[in-house]
C-alpha cells in the first residue's frame, strides 16, 4: 500500500504517510468510498446516510432492475462497484465463474444475527456461505387491485390465484383493467412452469414448450411487461393484476394508500405455492474497496438497520432479532412474513444452464411478440 502511494505523493507526504502507515497499518489505506449496485426501490430512507455519518465513507448508490443487467456487468468486469446484490441462483453462477470475492468473516461479526435456516438455503448455492449474505428475500407472486378484479371477473377469486394470470377465462376479463408481467424470462417461466405442473427450473426442454403453449393462449390479455414501472401503474390503477414481487406489490399498496385514490392493492399468497427469491450481498472479485464493503455488510446485518429495510420496502429479511424494530402493520402482513404453512408450499430458486436460459429467452420473445 505504501509503495502504491509513494508514486503519487511528494517526499514530505511520503514521510508523513510512512509514519501514519506504521502507526495504523492497512486500515487507513483504503479510500473512504463505497460504490453500491442494488435493485431499485430496495433500501430504507436513512440506510445510506446513517452509514455515511457513522463511518465517514462516501457511498455512491446505483440501481438495476433485473439480474441479467448485473450479471452482464460482472462478466464484463471492472464494474467499479464494491458491493452488488445478485439473487442467490445468479450468485451461484457468478461465484463459480470467479466473479465474486470470498468474504472475510472475521470482519463481519454480525453474521451471528442471521437466521440459520435461511443460511442453510443459501448454502445450496454457496457452499459454506463463503461469498454471499442475505439482503432481503421474497416471492414472485400475484398482486391484485381487489375491487377492480372482483368487478371484472364478476365473482369471488379463484381457488388458485394463478388462474387470474394464466387461465384465459379469467385473464380475458381482466384485460380491460390491465395485466402486467415482469419483463424477464427468468421470472415468468418458473411461475408458468409450476402452473402447468412442471418443475419450475426443469432441465427438460420439452417441459418449457408446454409452458410456452399455455402462455401463448393468454398473451392477448397481457397489457404491460415491466419489472419496475408496474409499481406506480398498480398504485395509480392502470394495472389490476400483476405478476410481480411481493414487496413491490406492497409498495404499490402503500403508495395507493398515501395517495388516497381508493385503489386497494393486495399481494396474494398463492395456496398452490410460488417461487421464492433470495437477494444477497456480494463483493465483486475486482472491487476497489472491499474493506468498506465488509463494513457495510456488517452494518446492514444489525437488527435495527435490517428492520429499516423491511419497514420501507416490505420484504422479509434474514435477521430474526430485527422483528422487534419492525412496524406492526408490516410485521402482521402475511405476504411479507409468511406463515410456516405458507412458506412450506413455496419453492426455492435454482440456477439453470446456458442452454435452458437460451430456450427460455427464445420462448419468452415468442410469447411477448405474440407470434
Amino acid at each position: 500500500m505504501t509503495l502504491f502511494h509513494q508514486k503519487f505523493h511528494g517526499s514530505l507526504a511520503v514521510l508523513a504517510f510512512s509514519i501514519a502507515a506504521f502507526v495504523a497499518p492497512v486500515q487507513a489505506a483504503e479510500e473512504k468510498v463505497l460504490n453500491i449496485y442494488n435493485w431499485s426501490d430496495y433500501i430504507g430512507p436513512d440506510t445510506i446516510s446513517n452509514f455515511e455519518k457513522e463511518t465517514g465513507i462516501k457511498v455512491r448508490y446505483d440501481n438495476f432492475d433485473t439480474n441479467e443487467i448485473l450479471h452482464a456487468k460482472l462478466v464484463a468486469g471492472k464494474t467499479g462497484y464494491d458491493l452488488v446484490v445478485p439473487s442467490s441462483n445468479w450468485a451461484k453462477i457468478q461465484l463459480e465463474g470467479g466473479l465474486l470475492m470470498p468474504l472475510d468473516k472475521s470482519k463481519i461479526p454480525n453474521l451471528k444475527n442471521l437466521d440459520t435456516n435461511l443460511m442453510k438455503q443459501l448454502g445450496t448455492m454457496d457452499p459454506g456461505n463463503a461469498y454471499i449474505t442475505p439482503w432481503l428475500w421474497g416471492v414472485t407472486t400475484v398482486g391484485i387491485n381487489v375491487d377492480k378484479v372482483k368487478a371484472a371477473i364478476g365473482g369471488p377469486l379463484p381457488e388458485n390465484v394463478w388462474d387470474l394470470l394464466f387461465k384465459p377465462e379469467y385473464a380475458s376479463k381482466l384485460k380491460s383493467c390491465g395485466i402486467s408481467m415482469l419483463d424477464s424470462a427468468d421470472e415468468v417461466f418458473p411461475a408458468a412452469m409450476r402452473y402447468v405442473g412442471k418443475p419450475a427450473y426443469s432441465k427438460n426442454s420439452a417441459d418449457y414448450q408446454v409452458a410456452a403453449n399455455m402462455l401463448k393462449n393468454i398473451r392477448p390479455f397481457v397489457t404491460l411487461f415491466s419489472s419496475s414501472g408496474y409499481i406506480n401503474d398498480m398504485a395509480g390503477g392502470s394495472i389490476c393484476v400483476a405478476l410481480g414481487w411481493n414487496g413491490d406489490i406492497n409498495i404499490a399498496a402503500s403508495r395507493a394508500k398515501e395517495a388516497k385514490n381508493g385503489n386497494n392493492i393486495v399481494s396474494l399468497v398463492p395456496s398452490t405455492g410460488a417461487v421464492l427469491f433470495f437477494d444477497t450481498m456480494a463483493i465483486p472479485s475486482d472491487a476497489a474497496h472491499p474493506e468498506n464493503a465488509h463494513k457495510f455488510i456488517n452494518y446492514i446485518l444489525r437488527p435495527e438497520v435490517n428492520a429499516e429495510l423491511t419497514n420501507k420496502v416490505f420484504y422479509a429479511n434474514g435477521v430474526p432479532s430485527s422483528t422487534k424494530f419492525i412496524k406492526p402493520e408490516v410485521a402482521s402482513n402475511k405476504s411479507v412474513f409468511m406463515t410456516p404453512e405458507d412458506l412450506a408450499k413455496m419453492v426455492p430458486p435454482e440456477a439453470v444452464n446456458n442452454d435452458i436460459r437460451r430456450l427460455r429467452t427464445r420462448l419468452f420473445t415468442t410469447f411477448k411478440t405474440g407470434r
Partner: protein
Amino acid sequence: MSTATTLIDKMVDRWGRRLVIGTPYLYLILVFSIPFFVVLKLSVSTSNDGIRFEDLTTFNDWVFNLTASFQKYRFLLQDDLYLNTYGSSLKFATINTLICLFIGYPFAYFMARSPVSMRPVLLMLVSLPFWTSYLLRVYAWRGLLDDSGTVNSLLIWLGAIDEPIKMMHTAFSMTVGMVYTYLPFMILPLYANLVKMDGRLIEAANDLGAGPMRAFWLVTVPLSKNGIIAGSMLVFIPSVGEYVIPELLGGPETLMIGRVLWDEFFANNDWAMASAVAVTMVILILFPLALFNKYQTAAVGRGTA
C-alpha cells in the same frame, strides 16, 4: 536562405496535409475498425460458462492453431427470429426515413427559400431540440400519447372520442418517436444542399415553359439528390439499430434488432451470439452502402452526378 524557407514550407505543406488527412483516418481506425474487429473476434469465439472465452489462437510446440467457430452464424440462419427481426428493423427504418423525407424536404425547401436574415433563426429552431436530452424528449411522448395522456384527454374533452385511443406502446407511438427524433438529421443536410442551389436555374426552366411543379421535379429534386441521399443515410442507418425509442415507446410485439441484441447479451449472456448478430447487421447495412457508393463514384467519374 530562400531555398531553406521553401524547403521548410514544403515540409510543413507535406506533413501538414498528412496530419489533416490522417486525423479522420486515425479516428475511424480507433473508434470504428478496432471495436468492429473486437466484436468480430468475439462472434467466432467459444465459451462454456459464458464468462471465460477460449483462446482463438494457440502456439504450442511450434504449432500455430486458429480456432474460429462459425456456429453462431449457422444458428442465426437456422432460427427465423433473427431474419424476421432484421426484416422488421429494416422495415421500420425505411418507414422512418420516408416520413422524415416527406416532412423534411418541404421544411428544408422553405428554410432555403426564406429571406437570408431569417435563415439563422430557422436553423436555430431546427437544432433547438438538441439542447434538451434526447431521452427526456422521447420520454415526454409518453405523457402525450398515454391512455390518460394529453392527446387522449383533449380528444375526450372535445367529445371526439369516448374511450381513450390506444396509442402508447404500439408501432404508431414508436414511429412518432423515431420521426420526431431523426427529423433534424434529414432537414439539416437537405437545407445545406438546397440553400446553395442557383435560383436562376428555376428561372431558366420557367422561361423554357416549365410550370412550377415541372421545374421542381426536373430541376430542384435532381439537383438536391446528394442532400436527399445524405439525409436519408443519416436517418436510416441509426434507425436500424435504434434501441432506446423502441424500448420506451414501442410495444412488446415490435421486433427490433436492438432488443434481440439486449436479450443475447443480458438474458442469454451469450456474447458470441450477440456479436454475431451485430456483425451481421453491420454487413447488412454496409454492403448496400458500399455498392451504392461505388455506383455514385462511377457516376461522378462520368460527370453525370
